[in-house]
């Protein structure tokens, strides 16, 4: 009885917290969803798996930064490090809750890092997949 109560209480607290975390990223994801539909009529929603694969993929546009993981490490719940030696807060929303809430900041870094790593701009779908993966961790 007591265990059930504690578990129920934990759920009652945890569920709204998780929902809040996802809600904070929702406006930006909605905007990328609109843009993704405009780019591709076949678009049918963002994918955590595609986001993960994109994050881990190796590219050959630049020898200094072949992958997101070059600076962010393969574990988004851990801190990364810039090539100049400065710490980067974890990319996972669970660790850095204000990530992907400031559209201007997010666009600045996608603009820079997509060019640095892929040698091209990212599509709206790639951006949405990436954020969906980071919000799932």
């Amino acid at each position, binding site marked *: 009885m007591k265990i059930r109560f504690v578990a129920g209480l934990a759920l009652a607290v945890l569920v709204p917290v998780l929902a809040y975390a996802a809600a904070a990223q929702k406006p930006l994801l909605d905007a990328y969803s609109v843009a993704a539909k405009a780019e591709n009529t076949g678009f049918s929603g963002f994918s955590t798996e595609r986001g993960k694969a994109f994050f881990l993929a190796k590219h050959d546009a630049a020898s200094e*930064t072949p992958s997101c993981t070059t600076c962010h490490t393969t574990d988004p719940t851990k801190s990364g490090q810039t090539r*100049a030696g400065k710490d980067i807060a974890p990319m996972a929303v669970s660790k850095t809750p204000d990530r992907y809430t400031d559209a201007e900041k997010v666009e*600045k870094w996608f*603009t*820079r890092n997509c*060019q*640095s790593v892929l040698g091209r701009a990212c599509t709206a779908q790639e951006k949405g997949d990436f954020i969906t993966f980071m919000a799932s961790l």
Partner: protein
Amino acid sequence: MPKLWSGLFAGAIALFGLGVLGTEPVLSANAGPDGAYVKECSACHIAYPAQYLPKRSWERILGTLDKHFGENATLSPAALAPVKAYLDSHAADSASGNARIMRDVGVNITPLRIVDMPFWVHIHRKQIERKAFDNPKVKNAGNCIACHKGAANGQFGDDD
């Protein structure tokens, strides 16, 4: 009489102290960097002191942000403008700069790294510094804060 001697002694110590402090501005930037410059230019590295490079260097750096030491560090025109204004008014050869930082910088030379400035090379010429740069934790000589803990605030003295 002993009072006079101790007073003179204290005075001499104070003067000596001032003399030592007097050399500090060469090592330390005049003031910590601030405003838009810090916001936009300290995400990947510390906001390097504007006073340690001439205006022409900062102009070249800001004009090539799409190829910034192996990474794209592009800024929107709106974000770039106040950064450029700050660097222009705080560069080594600006009114608020330090002429000694410009010593031995050829007029046709546009250094793109502070570590290529003659004043920097001179200060870091000793064996101990060269050894520190080989330490993998330091990564590279541009990682000032690895040794100078107050670097982000413009503090570069031996004890900072």
